Protein backbone atom coordinates (compact mmCIF):
# COMPACT_ATOMS: atom_id res chain seq x y z
CA UNK A 1 0.00 0.00 0.00
CA UNK A 2 2.72 2.41 1.03
CA UNK A 3 4.59 1.55 -2.12
CA UNK A 4 1.53 2.28 -4.23
CA UNK A 5 1.04 5.66 -2.57
CA UNK A 6 4.67 6.57 -3.09
CA UNK A 7 4.45 5.58 -6.75
CA UNK A 8 1.43 7.79 -7.15
CA UNK A 9 3.19 10.67 -5.45
CA UNK A 10 6.26 10.24 -7.61
CA UNK A 11 4.09 10.13 -10.68
CA UNK A 12 2.24 13.28 -9.65
CA UNK A 13 5.46 15.13 -8.93
CA UNK A 14 6.83 14.06 -12.28
CA UNK A 15 3.66 15.21 -14.00
CA UNK A 16 3.75 18.57 -12.27
CA UNK A 17 7.39 18.99 -13.16
CA UNK A 18 6.61 18.08 -16.72
CA UNK A 19 3.80 20.58 -16.90
CA UNK A 20 5.86 23.45 -15.54
CA UNK A 21 8.72 22.50 -17.84
CA UNK A 22 6.29 22.72 -20.74
CA UNK A 23 5.23 26.19 -19.69
CA UNK A 24 8.82 27.30 -19.59
CA UNK A 25 9.53 25.69 -22.95
CA UNK A 26 6.77 27.48 -24.74
CA UNK A 27 8.13 30.84 -23.63
CA UNK A 28 4.90 32.43 -24.70
CA UNK A 29 2.96 34.72 -22.43
CA UNK A 30 -0.40 33.04 -22.00
CA UNK A 31 -3.37 35.33 -22.55
CA UNK A 32 -7.05 34.63 -22.28
CA UNK A 33 -9.46 36.95 -24.10
CA UNK A 34 -13.14 36.58 -23.38
CA UNK A 35 -14.33 36.81 -26.97
CA UNK A 36 -13.02 36.73 -30.50
CA UNK A 37 -12.68 40.48 -31.13
CA UNK A 38 -10.57 41.00 -28.00
CA UNK A 39 -8.56 37.94 -29.02
CA UNK A 40 -7.83 39.54 -32.38
CA UNK A 41 -6.62 42.76 -30.74
CA UNK A 42 -4.42 40.77 -28.36
CA UNK A 43 -2.86 38.75 -31.19
CA UNK A 44 -2.05 41.91 -33.11
CA UNK A 45 -0.40 43.61 -30.15
CA UNK A 46 1.26 40.55 -28.66
CA UNK A 47 2.59 39.13 -31.91
CA UNK A 48 4.94 36.15 -31.50
CA UNK A 49 5.51 36.68 -27.80
CA UNK A 50 2.03 35.64 -26.70
CA UNK A 51 -0.35 32.76 -27.18
CA UNK A 52 -3.97 33.88 -27.11
CA UNK A 53 -6.93 31.74 -26.16
CA UNK A 54 -10.47 33.03 -26.58
CA UNK A 55 -13.28 31.70 -24.40
CA UNK A 56 -16.28 32.56 -26.57
CA UNK A 57 -15.36 31.42 -30.04
CA UNK A 58 -16.35 32.75 -33.45
CA UNK A 59 -20.06 33.08 -34.22
CA UNK A 60 -21.12 32.72 -30.58
CA UNK A 61 -22.92 35.17 -28.38
CA UNK A 62 -21.00 36.49 -25.40
CA UNK A 63 -24.12 37.78 -23.62
CA UNK A 64 -25.54 34.39 -22.88
CA UNK A 65 -22.37 32.29 -22.84
CA UNK A 66 -22.13 29.47 -20.32
CA UNK A 67 -18.53 28.79 -19.31
CA UNK A 68 -17.23 25.24 -19.28
CA UNK A 69 -14.67 23.69 -16.90
CA UNK A 70 -12.07 23.85 -19.66
CA UNK A 71 -12.55 27.63 -19.65
CA UNK A 72 -11.70 27.67 -15.96
CA UNK A 73 -8.57 25.70 -16.76
CA UNK A 74 -7.57 28.13 -19.49
CA UNK A 75 -7.93 30.98 -17.01
CA UNK A 76 -5.90 29.13 -14.38
CA UNK A 77 -3.06 28.74 -16.86
CA UNK A 78 -3.18 32.32 -18.06
CA UNK A 79 -0.96 35.19 -17.01
CA UNK A 80 -3.34 37.85 -18.27
CA UNK A 81 -7.13 37.85 -18.77
CA UNK A 82 -8.48 40.44 -21.19
CA UNK A 83 -12.12 41.38 -20.70
CA UNK A 84 -14.39 43.91 -22.33
CA UNK A 85 -16.06 44.99 -19.10
CA UNK A 86 -19.17 47.22 -19.02
CA UNK A 87 -21.19 44.19 -18.00
CA UNK A 88 -20.68 42.20 -21.19
CA UNK A 89 -19.15 39.18 -19.48
CA UNK A 90 -21.48 38.84 -16.50
CA UNK A 91 -20.31 35.28 -16.04
CA UNK A 92 -16.59 36.07 -15.89
CA UNK A 93 -15.83 37.33 -12.35
CA UNK A 94 -17.15 34.14 -10.77
CA UNK A 95 -15.23 32.06 -13.26
CA UNK A 96 -11.96 33.83 -12.44
CA UNK A 97 -12.60 33.46 -8.73
CA UNK A 98 -13.58 29.80 -8.92
CA UNK A 99 -10.62 28.90 -11.10
CA UNK A 100 -8.29 30.18 -8.36
CA UNK A 101 -6.32 31.99 -11.03
CA UNK A 102 -3.68 34.56 -10.16
CA UNK A 103 -3.96 36.10 -13.60
CA UNK A 104 -4.04 39.85 -13.97
CA UNK A 105 -7.34 41.10 -15.41
CA UNK A 106 -7.34 43.95 -17.95
CA UNK A 107 -10.54 45.80 -18.70
CA UNK A 108 -10.06 46.80 -22.34
CA UNK A 109 -12.72 49.52 -22.27
CA UNK A 110 -10.92 51.48 -19.52
CA UNK A 111 -11.00 55.20 -20.32
CA UNK A 112 -13.72 54.95 -22.98
CA UNK A 113 -16.58 57.44 -22.76
CA UNK A 114 -19.50 55.05 -22.46
CA UNK A 115 -22.94 55.38 -23.97
CA UNK A 116 -26.02 54.50 -22.03
CA UNK A 117 -28.36 51.81 -23.22
CA UNK A 118 -31.27 53.67 -24.75
CA UNK A 119 -34.05 51.27 -23.92
CA UNK A 120 -34.50 51.94 -20.22
CA UNK A 121 -37.63 49.76 -19.97
CA UNK A 122 -35.72 46.52 -19.92
CA UNK A 123 -32.59 47.57 -18.12
CA UNK A 124 -31.60 49.83 -15.28
CA UNK A 125 -31.25 53.40 -16.52
CA UNK A 126 -27.57 53.55 -15.59
CA UNK A 127 -26.44 50.54 -17.66
CA UNK A 128 -23.58 51.29 -20.02
CA UNK A 129 -23.71 49.85 -23.52
CA UNK A 130 -20.88 47.29 -23.65
CA UNK A 131 -20.44 47.17 -27.45
CA UNK A 132 -17.77 49.90 -27.46
CA UNK A 133 -15.56 48.14 -30.03
CA UNK A 134 -17.98 48.97 -32.84
CA UNK A 135 -16.37 52.41 -33.07
CA UNK A 136 -12.88 52.24 -34.51
CA UNK A 137 -11.94 55.21 -32.36
CA UNK A 138 -12.71 53.12 -29.28
CA UNK A 139 -10.90 50.14 -30.75
CA UNK A 140 -7.73 52.22 -30.56
CA UNK A 141 -8.31 52.63 -26.81
CA UNK A 142 -8.77 48.87 -26.51
CA UNK A 143 -5.44 48.34 -28.25
CA UNK A 144 -3.67 50.89 -26.07
CA UNK A 145 -5.05 49.29 -22.90
CA UNK A 146 -3.98 45.84 -24.03
CA UNK A 147 -0.51 47.14 -24.97
CA UNK A 148 -0.04 48.73 -21.53
CA UNK A 149 -1.17 45.60 -19.75
CA UNK A 150 1.17 43.43 -21.80
CA UNK A 151 4.07 45.69 -20.95
CA UNK A 152 3.27 45.35 -17.24
CA UNK A 153 2.90 41.58 -17.47
CA UNK A 154 5.99 41.06 -19.62
CA UNK A 155 8.36 44.06 -19.35
CA UNK A 156 11.01 42.27 -21.41
CA UNK A 157 8.80 42.53 -24.47
CA UNK A 158 7.95 46.18 -24.05
CA UNK A 159 9.62 47.29 -27.26
CA UNK A 160 8.00 44.58 -29.35
CA UNK A 161 4.57 45.40 -27.94
CA UNK A 162 5.03 49.09 -28.61
CA UNK A 163 6.10 48.49 -32.21
CA UNK A 164 3.24 46.03 -32.86
CA UNK A 165 0.68 48.33 -31.30
CA UNK A 166 1.92 51.34 -33.26
CA UNK A 167 1.65 49.56 -36.58
CA UNK A 168 -1.78 48.14 -35.71
CA UNK A 169 -3.00 51.56 -34.52
CA UNK A 170 -2.01 53.11 -37.83
CA UNK A 171 -4.02 50.42 -39.61
CA UNK A 172 -6.98 51.33 -37.40
CA UNK A 173 -6.52 55.01 -38.29
CA UNK A 174 -6.72 54.14 -41.97
CA UNK A 175 -9.80 52.02 -41.27
CA UNK A 176 -11.44 54.90 -39.42
CA UNK A 177 -10.81 57.23 -42.37
CA UNK A 178 -12.24 54.72 -44.84
CA UNK A 179 -15.41 54.26 -42.80
CA UNK A 180 -15.96 58.02 -42.58
CA UNK A 181 -15.44 58.40 -46.33
CA UNK A 182 -17.87 55.59 -47.09
CA UNK A 183 -20.55 57.07 -44.85
CA UNK A 184 -20.08 60.50 -46.42
CA UNK A 185 -21.14 59.04 -49.79
CA UNK A 186 -24.54 57.94 -48.46
CA UNK A 187 -27.25 60.62 -48.78
CA UNK A 188 -28.04 61.99 -45.33
CA UNK A 189 -31.73 61.09 -45.38
CA UNK A 190 -30.89 57.44 -46.10
CA UNK A 191 -28.54 57.00 -43.15
CA UNK A 192 -30.78 54.79 -41.03
CA UNK A 193 -31.20 51.03 -40.84
CA UNK A 194 -33.00 48.43 -38.79
CA UNK A 195 -30.88 45.72 -37.25
CA UNK A 196 -31.86 42.85 -34.95
CA UNK A 197 -29.37 43.74 -32.33
CA UNK A 198 -28.57 47.25 -31.20
CA UNK A 199 -24.89 46.57 -30.78
CA UNK A 200 -24.08 49.48 -33.04
CA UNK A 201 -24.70 52.34 -30.61
CA UNK A 202 -21.07 53.47 -30.65
CA UNK A 203 -20.79 53.02 -34.40
CA UNK A 204 -23.93 55.14 -34.81
CA UNK A 205 -22.66 57.85 -32.47
CA UNK A 206 -19.30 58.17 -34.20
CA UNK A 207 -20.25 57.69 -37.85
CA UNK A 208 -23.79 59.02 -37.96
CA UNK A 209 -25.75 56.03 -39.22
CA UNK A 210 -28.86 55.51 -37.18
CA UNK A 211 -29.52 51.95 -36.00
CA UNK A 212 -33.01 51.02 -34.92
CA UNK A 213 -33.38 47.66 -33.26
CA UNK A 214 -36.47 45.50 -32.97
CA UNK A 215 -35.09 43.88 -29.86
CA UNK A 216 -33.58 45.16 -26.63
CA UNK A 217 -29.85 45.48 -26.23
CA UNK A 218 -29.48 41.96 -24.95
CA UNK A 219 -30.24 39.05 -27.24
CA UNK A 220 -31.96 37.38 -24.30
CA UNK A 221 -35.17 39.39 -24.43
CA UNK A 222 -38.09 38.28 -26.55
CA UNK A 223 -39.87 41.03 -28.50
CA UNK A 224 -43.56 41.62 -27.92
CA UNK A 225 -46.08 42.12 -30.68
CA UNK A 226 -46.11 45.78 -29.73
CA UNK A 227 -42.36 46.14 -30.32
CA UNK A 228 -42.61 44.59 -33.78
CA UNK A 229 -45.63 46.69 -34.69
CA UNK A 230 -43.80 49.83 -33.59
CA UNK A 231 -40.81 48.95 -35.76
CA UNK A 232 -42.98 48.26 -38.80
CA UNK A 233 -44.91 51.50 -38.37
CA UNK A 234 -41.65 53.35 -37.99
CA UNK A 235 -40.09 51.89 -41.13
CA UNK A 236 -43.22 52.73 -43.09
CA UNK A 237 -43.45 56.25 -41.72
CA UNK A 238 -39.78 57.20 -41.93
CA UNK A 239 -39.19 55.21 -45.13
CA UNK A 240 -36.13 53.48 -43.69
CA UNK A 241 -34.41 51.90 -46.67
CA UNK A 242 -32.75 48.80 -45.25
CA UNK A 243 -33.15 45.99 -42.74
CA UNK A 244 -30.12 44.04 -41.57
CA UNK A 245 -29.84 40.49 -40.36
CA UNK A 246 -27.33 39.75 -37.70
CA UNK A 247 -25.35 36.62 -37.00
CA UNK A 248 -26.84 35.89 -33.60
CA UNK A 249 -30.57 36.64 -33.75
CA UNK A 250 -33.70 35.11 -35.26
CA UNK A 251 -33.54 35.78 -39.01
CA UNK A 252 -37.20 34.82 -39.57
CA UNK A 253 -38.32 37.86 -37.62
CA UNK A 254 -36.22 40.15 -39.80
CA UNK A 255 -37.56 38.63 -43.00
CA UNK A 256 -41.08 39.12 -41.69
CA UNK A 257 -40.45 42.81 -41.00
CA UNK A 258 -38.80 43.29 -44.39
CA UNK A 259 -41.68 41.58 -46.18
CA UNK A 260 -44.19 43.78 -44.42
CA UNK A 261 -42.44 47.07 -45.13
CA UNK A 262 -40.74 46.60 -48.48
CA UNK A 263 -37.35 47.59 -47.04
CA UNK A 264 -34.19 46.03 -48.50
CA UNK A 265 -32.74 43.11 -46.61
CA UNK A 266 -29.09 43.99 -46.27
CA UNK A 267 -26.35 41.42 -45.84
CA UNK A 268 -25.20 40.16 -42.48
CA UNK A 269 -23.63 42.65 -40.10
CA UNK A 270 -21.17 41.20 -37.64
CA UNK A 271 -21.40 42.78 -34.23
CA UNK A 272 -20.50 40.63 -31.24
CA UNK A 273 -18.20 38.05 -32.72
CA UNK A 274 -15.86 37.41 -35.58
CA UNK A 275 -16.38 34.55 -37.99
CA UNK A 276 -13.98 31.66 -38.35
CA UNK A 277 -11.13 31.76 -40.88
CA UNK A 278 -13.35 30.96 -43.86
CA UNK A 279 -16.02 33.51 -42.98
CA UNK A 280 -16.16 37.11 -44.20
CA UNK A 281 -14.97 38.61 -40.90
CA UNK A 282 -12.08 36.61 -39.42
CA UNK A 283 -10.39 39.73 -37.98
CA UNK A 284 -11.63 42.98 -36.49
CA UNK A 285 -10.50 45.03 -39.48
CA UNK A 286 -12.19 42.61 -41.88
CA UNK A 287 -15.34 42.80 -39.77
CA UNK A 288 -15.55 46.60 -39.90
CA UNK A 289 -14.79 46.62 -43.63
CA UNK A 290 -17.43 43.97 -44.25
CA UNK A 291 -20.00 45.88 -42.24
CA UNK A 292 -19.42 49.21 -43.90
CA UNK A 293 -19.56 47.60 -47.34
CA UNK A 294 -22.86 45.92 -46.51
CA UNK A 295 -24.25 49.18 -45.14
CA UNK A 296 -23.24 51.33 -48.09
CA UNK A 297 -24.47 48.88 -50.70
CA UNK A 298 -27.90 48.58 -49.03
CA UNK A 299 -28.31 52.28 -48.32
CA UNK A 300 -26.94 53.96 -51.44
CA UNK A 301 -28.93 51.95 -53.96
Amino acid at each position, binding site marked *: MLRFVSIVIVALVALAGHASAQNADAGHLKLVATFSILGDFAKNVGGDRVSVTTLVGPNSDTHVYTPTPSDAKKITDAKLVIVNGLGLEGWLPRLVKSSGSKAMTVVATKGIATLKIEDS*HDHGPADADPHAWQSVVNAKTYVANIRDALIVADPAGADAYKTNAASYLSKLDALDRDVREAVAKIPIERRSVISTHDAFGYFAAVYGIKFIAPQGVSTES*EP*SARDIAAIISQIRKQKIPAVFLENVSDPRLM*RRIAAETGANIGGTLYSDSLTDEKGPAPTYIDMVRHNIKALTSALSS
Partner: protein
Amino acid sequence: MMRQRRAPSMRSHGRREFVMIYDALIAPFTEFEFMRRALAGVIALALGGAPIGVFLMLRRMSLVGDAMAHAILPGAAIGFLLSGLNLFAMTFGGLVAGFTVAILSGLVARSTELKEDASLAAFYLVSLALGVTIVSVKGTNIDLLHVLFGNILAMDDQTLLVIAFNATITLLVLAVIYRPLVIECVDPVFLRTVSRAGAPAHLAFLALVVINLVNGFHALGTLLAVGLMILPAGIARFWSRDITGMIGIAVASAALSGFAGLLLSFHTKVPSGPAIILVCAGLYVVSVLFGSVSGLVRQLFPGRHLEA
Protein backbone atom coordinates in the same frame (compact mmCIF):
# COMPACT_ATOMS: atom_id res chain seq x y z
CA MET B 1 -58.18 49.37 -21.86
CA MET B 2 -61.61 48.73 -20.41
CA ARG B 3 -61.86 52.21 -18.97
CA GLN B 4 -60.81 53.84 -22.21
CA ARG B 5 -63.48 51.97 -24.02
CA ARG B 6 -66.24 52.91 -21.62
CA ALA B 7 -65.51 56.55 -20.93
CA PRO B 8 -66.47 58.11 -24.28
CA SER B 9 -69.61 55.99 -24.63
CA MET B 10 -71.22 58.05 -21.90
CA ARG B 11 -71.65 61.03 -24.17
CA SER B 12 -71.23 59.72 -27.67
CA HIS B 13 -73.11 57.32 -29.86
CA GLY B 14 -72.54 53.66 -30.32
CA ARG B 15 -70.59 54.31 -33.46
CA ARG B 16 -67.70 55.90 -31.65
CA GLU B 17 -67.61 53.09 -29.18
CA PHE B 18 -67.56 50.66 -32.05
CA VAL B 19 -64.54 52.43 -33.53
CA MET B 20 -62.65 52.12 -30.26
CA ILE B 21 -63.45 48.46 -29.93
CA TYR B 22 -62.44 48.01 -33.54
CA ASP B 23 -59.13 49.77 -32.89
CA ALA B 24 -58.44 47.66 -29.85
CA LEU B 25 -59.50 44.26 -31.12
CA ILE B 26 -59.48 44.18 -34.91
CA ALA B 27 -57.18 46.91 -36.21
CA PRO B 28 -53.93 45.23 -35.06
CA PHE B 29 -54.77 42.33 -37.34
CA THR B 30 -55.88 44.35 -40.36
CA GLU B 31 -52.91 46.67 -40.11
CA PHE B 32 -50.12 44.16 -39.59
CA GLU B 33 -49.62 41.00 -41.53
CA PHE B 34 -47.41 39.46 -38.84
CA MET B 35 -50.37 39.64 -36.45
CA ARG B 36 -52.61 37.85 -38.95
CA ARG B 37 -49.98 35.19 -39.48
CA ALA B 38 -49.49 34.74 -35.74
CA LEU B 39 -53.25 34.38 -35.31
CA ALA B 40 -53.47 31.83 -38.11
CA GLY B 41 -50.60 29.92 -36.55
CA VAL B 42 -52.09 29.88 -33.07
CA ILE B 43 -55.51 28.80 -34.36
CA ALA B 44 -53.91 25.92 -36.25
CA LEU B 45 -52.09 24.98 -33.06
CA ALA B 46 -55.36 25.13 -31.13
CA LEU B 47 -57.14 22.89 -33.65
CA GLY B 48 -54.48 20.20 -33.41
CA GLY B 49 -53.18 20.55 -29.88
CA ALA B 50 -56.30 21.11 -27.79
CA PRO B 51 -58.02 17.78 -28.61
CA ILE B 52 -54.73 16.01 -27.91
CA GLY B 53 -54.61 17.82 -24.57
CA VAL B 54 -58.13 16.61 -23.72
CA PHE B 55 -57.13 12.99 -24.32
CA LEU B 56 -53.89 13.44 -22.39
CA MET B 57 -55.92 14.73 -19.48
CA LEU B 58 -58.51 11.97 -19.64
CA ARG B 59 -55.74 9.38 -19.72
CA ARG B 60 -54.05 11.05 -16.75
CA MET B 61 -51.04 11.77 -18.91
CA SER B 62 -51.04 15.56 -18.63
CA LEU B 63 -47.45 15.67 -17.43
CA VAL B 64 -46.37 13.33 -20.21
CA GLY B 65 -46.76 16.26 -22.57
CA ASP B 66 -44.27 18.24 -20.56
CA ALA B 67 -41.81 15.37 -20.46
CA MET B 68 -42.11 14.78 -24.18
CA ALA B 69 -41.54 18.45 -24.90
CA HIS B 70 -38.09 18.11 -23.34
CA ALA B 71 -37.46 14.84 -25.12
CA ILE B 72 -37.73 16.59 -28.48
CA LEU B 73 -34.74 18.81 -27.83
CA PRO B 74 -31.81 16.60 -28.94
CA GLY B 75 -33.49 15.82 -32.25
CA ALA B 76 -34.12 19.47 -32.93
CA ALA B 77 -30.55 20.18 -31.84
CA ILE B 78 -29.08 17.64 -34.25
CA GLY B 79 -31.25 19.04 -37.02
CA PHE B 80 -29.95 22.46 -36.09
CA LEU B 81 -26.32 21.29 -36.09
CA LEU B 82 -26.62 19.72 -39.51
CA SER B 83 -28.42 22.54 -41.26
CA GLY B 84 -28.73 25.59 -39.04
CA LEU B 85 -32.10 27.11 -38.24
CA ASN B 86 -33.70 24.96 -40.90
CA LEU B 87 -37.37 24.33 -40.26
CA PHE B 88 -37.64 20.89 -41.82
CA ALA B 89 -34.42 19.51 -40.38
CA MET B 90 -35.42 20.62 -36.89
CA THR B 91 -38.97 19.34 -37.28
CA PHE B 92 -37.78 15.98 -38.54
CA GLY B 93 -35.14 15.68 -35.83
CA GLY B 94 -37.68 16.60 -33.16
CA LEU B 95 -40.13 14.00 -34.42
CA VAL B 96 -37.48 11.26 -34.48
CA ALA B 97 -36.26 12.10 -30.96
CA GLY B 98 -39.81 12.31 -29.60
CA PHE B 99 -40.83 8.98 -31.14
CA THR B 100 -37.65 7.30 -29.93
CA VAL B 101 -38.23 8.37 -26.35
CA ALA B 102 -41.94 7.47 -26.50
CA ILE B 103 -41.30 4.03 -27.95
CA LEU B 104 -38.29 3.20 -25.77
CA SER B 105 -40.06 4.19 -22.57
CA GLY B 106 -43.13 2.25 -23.68
CA LEU B 107 -40.99 -0.82 -24.35
CA VAL B 108 -39.20 -0.60 -21.00
CA ALA B 109 -42.52 -0.15 -19.20
CA ARG B 110 -44.12 -3.13 -20.95
CA SER B 111 -41.17 -5.52 -20.59
CA THR B 112 -39.89 -4.68 -17.09
CA GLU B 113 -41.42 -3.81 -13.75
CA LEU B 114 -40.71 -0.12 -14.12
CA LYS B 115 -43.90 1.89 -14.51
CA GLU B 116 -44.38 3.98 -17.63
CA ASP B 117 -44.09 7.36 -15.87
CA ALA B 118 -40.75 6.43 -14.28
CA SER B 119 -39.26 5.08 -17.48
CA LEU B 120 -40.50 8.10 -19.42
CA ALA B 121 -38.95 10.40 -16.81
CA ALA B 122 -35.64 8.58 -17.19
CA PHE B 123 -35.64 8.76 -20.97
CA TYR B 124 -36.73 12.34 -21.27
CA LEU B 125 -34.09 13.53 -18.82
CA VAL B 126 -31.41 11.66 -20.75
CA SER B 127 -32.78 13.19 -23.92
CA LEU B 128 -32.79 16.70 -22.47
CA ALA B 129 -29.20 16.35 -21.28
CA LEU B 130 -28.18 15.10 -24.71
CA GLY B 131 -29.94 18.01 -26.33
CA VAL B 132 -28.21 20.63 -24.20
CA THR B 133 -24.86 18.88 -24.77
CA ILE B 134 -25.32 18.76 -28.53
CA VAL B 135 -26.28 22.40 -28.71
CA SER B 136 -23.32 23.53 -26.59
CA VAL B 137 -20.82 21.40 -28.52
CA LYS B 138 -21.37 23.64 -31.51
CA GLY B 139 -20.74 26.63 -29.26
CA THR B 140 -23.59 28.68 -30.67
CA ASN B 141 -25.91 28.72 -27.74
CA ILE B 142 -28.12 31.66 -28.65
CA ASP B 143 -30.16 29.57 -31.03
CA LEU B 144 -31.02 27.19 -28.25
CA LEU B 145 -33.12 30.02 -26.91
CA HIS B 146 -35.04 30.14 -30.16
CA VAL B 147 -35.74 26.43 -29.79
CA LEU B 148 -36.78 26.86 -26.18
CA PHE B 149 -38.88 29.95 -26.67
CA GLY B 150 -39.85 29.93 -30.35
CA ASN B 151 -41.28 33.03 -31.87
CA ILE B 152 -44.89 33.28 -32.87
CA LEU B 153 -44.31 36.70 -34.39
CA ALA B 154 -41.89 35.30 -36.95
CA MET B 155 -44.30 33.04 -38.83
CA ASP B 156 -42.99 32.70 -42.36
CA ASP B 157 -44.80 30.75 -45.09
CA GLN B 158 -42.85 27.58 -44.39
CA THR B 159 -43.57 27.58 -40.67
CA LEU B 160 -47.27 28.26 -41.21
CA LEU B 161 -47.54 25.48 -43.77
CA VAL B 162 -45.78 22.99 -41.49
CA ILE B 163 -48.08 23.90 -38.60
CA ALA B 164 -51.21 23.69 -40.74
CA PHE B 165 -50.08 20.39 -42.27
CA ASN B 166 -49.39 18.87 -38.85
CA ALA B 167 -52.75 20.08 -37.50
CA THR B 168 -54.51 18.49 -40.49
CA ILE B 169 -52.70 15.18 -39.97
CA THR B 170 -53.59 15.31 -36.28
CA LEU B 171 -57.31 15.78 -36.95
CA LEU B 172 -57.39 13.03 -39.60
CA VAL B 173 -55.57 10.48 -37.44
CA LEU B 174 -57.66 11.47 -34.44
CA ALA B 175 -60.81 10.80 -36.46
CA VAL B 176 -59.53 7.29 -37.29
CA ILE B 177 -58.49 6.32 -33.74
CA TYR B 178 -61.27 8.24 -31.99
CA ARG B 179 -63.38 5.25 -30.98
CA PRO B 180 -60.72 3.03 -29.42
CA LEU B 181 -59.18 6.11 -27.82
CA VAL B 182 -62.44 7.14 -26.15
CA ILE B 183 -63.31 3.64 -25.05
CA GLU B 184 -59.84 3.12 -23.62
CA CYS B 185 -60.21 6.31 -21.59
CA VAL B 186 -63.49 5.15 -20.14
CA ASP B 187 -63.17 1.40 -19.90
CA PRO B 188 -59.82 -0.08 -20.97
CA VAL B 189 -60.77 -3.60 -19.86
CA PHE B 190 -63.84 -3.57 -22.08
CA LEU B 191 -61.76 -2.38 -25.05
CA ARG B 192 -59.30 -5.21 -24.52
CA THR B 193 -62.09 -7.80 -24.58
CA VAL B 194 -63.74 -6.57 -27.76
CA SER B 195 -60.87 -5.27 -29.85
CA ARG B 196 -57.14 -5.29 -30.32
CA ALA B 197 -57.06 -1.66 -31.48
CA GLY B 198 -55.97 -0.42 -28.03
CA ALA B 199 -52.19 -0.70 -28.41
CA PRO B 200 -51.92 0.67 -31.96
CA ALA B 201 -54.30 3.49 -31.06
CA HIS B 202 -52.16 4.32 -28.04
CA LEU B 203 -49.01 4.42 -30.18
CA ALA B 204 -50.69 6.57 -32.81
CA PHE B 205 -51.85 8.86 -30.05
CA LEU B 206 -48.31 9.20 -28.65
CA ALA B 207 -47.17 10.02 -32.19
CA LEU B 208 -49.77 12.76 -32.35
CA VAL B 209 -48.56 14.15 -29.03
CA VAL B 210 -45.04 14.38 -30.44
CA ILE B 211 -46.23 15.93 -33.72
CA ASN B 212 -48.17 18.62 -31.90
CA LEU B 213 -45.33 19.42 -29.54
CA VAL B 214 -42.96 19.80 -32.47
CA ASN B 215 -45.61 21.97 -34.06
CA GLY B 216 -45.84 24.08 -30.96
CA PHE B 217 -42.14 24.68 -30.56
CA HIS B 218 -41.88 26.59 -33.81
CA ALA B 219 -44.44 29.03 -32.52
CA LEU B 220 -44.20 29.03 -28.75
CA GLY B 221 -41.04 27.08 -28.02
CA THR B 222 -40.76 23.68 -26.38
CA LEU B 223 -41.67 24.96 -22.95
CA LEU B 224 -44.82 26.91 -23.73
CA ALA B 225 -46.10 24.57 -26.44
CA VAL B 226 -47.33 22.24 -23.72
CA GLY B 227 -49.33 25.09 -22.19
CA LEU B 228 -51.58 25.49 -25.21
CA MET B 229 -52.27 21.76 -25.08
CA ILE B 230 -52.96 21.12 -21.42
CA LEU B 231 -54.50 24.35 -20.12
CA PRO B 232 -57.44 24.38 -22.60
CA ALA B 233 -58.13 20.75 -21.69
CA GLY B 234 -58.21 21.75 -18.03
CA ILE B 235 -60.59 24.59 -18.85
CA ALA B 236 -62.88 22.30 -20.85
CA ARG B 237 -63.12 19.85 -17.96
CA PHE B 238 -64.97 22.48 -15.91
CA TRP B 239 -67.61 23.18 -18.52
CA SER B 240 -68.55 19.87 -20.03
CA ARG B 241 -68.98 16.24 -19.10
CA ASP B 242 -68.84 14.61 -22.50
CA ILE B 243 -65.73 14.27 -24.62
CA THR B 244 -67.13 15.98 -27.72
CA GLY B 245 -68.13 19.00 -25.68
CA MET B 246 -64.75 19.08 -23.97
CA ILE B 247 -62.89 18.98 -27.26
CA GLY B 248 -65.02 21.80 -28.65
CA ILE B 249 -64.52 23.96 -25.58
CA ALA B 250 -60.80 23.20 -25.45
CA VAL B 251 -60.27 24.21 -29.08
CA ALA B 252 -62.37 27.34 -28.62
CA SER B 253 -60.59 28.42 -25.45
CA ALA B 254 -57.15 27.75 -26.98
CA ALA B 255 -58.02 29.85 -30.03
CA LEU B 256 -59.51 32.57 -27.83
CA SER B 257 -56.35 32.60 -25.69
CA GLY B 258 -54.29 32.94 -28.84
CA PHE B 259 -56.36 35.88 -30.04
CA ALA B 260 -56.49 37.62 -26.65
CA GLY B 261 -52.84 36.83 -25.90
CA LEU B 262 -51.69 38.41 -29.16
CA LEU B 263 -53.76 41.49 -28.39
CA LEU B 264 -52.34 41.62 -24.87
CA SER B 265 -48.85 41.47 -26.32
CA PHE B 266 -49.79 44.12 -28.85
CA HIS B 267 -51.23 46.59 -26.36
CA THR B 268 -48.85 46.01 -23.46
CA LYS B 269 -45.26 44.88 -23.83
CA VAL B 270 -45.60 41.29 -22.71
CA PRO B 271 -43.79 38.89 -25.07
CA SER B 272 -46.32 37.09 -27.25
CA GLY B 273 -45.70 33.46 -26.31
CA PRO B 274 -46.02 33.97 -22.55
CA ALA B 275 -48.94 36.37 -23.12
CA ILE B 276 -50.95 33.65 -24.85
CA ILE B 277 -50.29 31.14 -22.10
CA LEU B 278 -51.04 33.71 -19.38
CA VAL B 279 -54.42 34.51 -20.92
CA CYS B 280 -55.09 30.80 -21.10
CA ALA B 281 -54.12 30.49 -17.43
CA GLY B 282 -56.54 33.32 -16.61
CA LEU B 283 -59.36 31.44 -18.33
CA TYR B 284 -58.34 28.36 -16.38
CA VAL B 285 -58.61 30.16 -13.03
CA VAL B 286 -62.03 31.53 -13.99
CA SER B 287 -63.10 28.01 -14.95
CA VAL B 288 -61.87 26.51 -11.69
CA LEU B 289 -63.94 29.08 -9.82
CA PHE B 290 -67.07 29.37 -11.92
CA GLY B 291 -67.11 26.26 -14.11
CA SER B 292 -70.51 24.62 -14.43
CA VAL B 293 -69.01 21.18 -13.80
CA SER B 294 -67.53 21.06 -10.28
CA GLY B 295 -66.45 24.69 -10.30
CA LEU B 296 -65.73 25.91 -6.76
CA VAL B 297 -68.41 28.60 -6.66
CA ARG B 298 -71.02 26.22 -8.05
CA GLN B 299 -70.13 23.75 -5.35
CA LEU B 300 -70.63 26.40 -2.67
CA PHE B 301 -74.07 27.38 -3.95
CA PRO B 302 -75.43 24.20 -5.41
CA GLY B 303 -79.08 24.99 -4.76
CA ARG B 304 -79.37 27.73 -7.33
CA HIS B 305 -78.33 25.52 -10.14
CA LEU B 306 -80.33 22.43 -9.42
CA GLU B 307 -82.21 21.36 -12.45
CA ALA B 308 -85.51 19.60 -12.60
